């Protein structure tokens, strides 16, 4: 198993555009969480999905949305991009819903908004 995979690796967008980031969890993992990591900060929780339902949401505006598919892969969408959305976006998968279970992180997608 290659572990959690994310695509694309890097992305450059212009202010006002929309972006979709993708994540494939480890086989058998039903929980996917998304984090935003701004330079010099720790990862900040955005969403958690378990069994295709949203189970947790962080303090992010409605421009951020996500979904989980029947194969447990997930997409994170960000609309009306702002310069402040430039960050590393991390996806993590876990076997169970509770975040106390070990989360396995992907390599991240580096988003640059110009």
């Amino acid at each position, binding site marked *: 198993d290659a*572990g*959690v995979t994310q695509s694309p690796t890097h992305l450059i967008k212009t202010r006002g555009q929309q972006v979709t980031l993708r994540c494939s969890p480890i086989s058998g993992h039903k929980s996917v*969480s998304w*984090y935003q990591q701004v330079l*010099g*900060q*720790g*990862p*900040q*929780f955005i969403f*958690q999905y*378990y069994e295709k339902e949203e*189970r*947790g949401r*962080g303090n992010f505006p409605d421009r951020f949305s996500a979904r989980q598919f029947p194969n447990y892969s997930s997409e994170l969408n960000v609309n009306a991009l702002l310069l402040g959305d430039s960050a590393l976006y*991390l996806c993590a998968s876990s076997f169970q*819903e*509770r*975040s*106390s279970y*070990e*989360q*396995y*992180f*992907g*390599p991240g997608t580096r988003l640059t908004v110009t």
Partner: protein
Amino acid sequence: AQRVTQPEKLLSVFKGAPVELKCNYSYSGSPELFWYVQYSRQRLQLLLRHISRESIKGFTADLNKGETSFHLKKPFAQEEDSAMYYCALSGLDNSKLTFGKGITLSVRP
């Protein structure tokens, strides 16, 4: 609200010296505490969690509810311990994992 504070950004020690990475938290309920580590060019990964009460790679961490702390310790640092370390907190009643800002540990030969 849940919050994790790592007061230092960088700790530089010589090989063989003791290491203590500080972590303080704020949470009104029963917390679960973790240390995650990111080695150079690798993914963020779990190092240890307080409920396991185990030593991983020589590191230990004790949850002190009175001082709301979860400091990471190792008696003798090794060069391969050089990495970014993040303290994280989860509540028993929610699915949100809250990270601190992280600390860079540099172990010099």
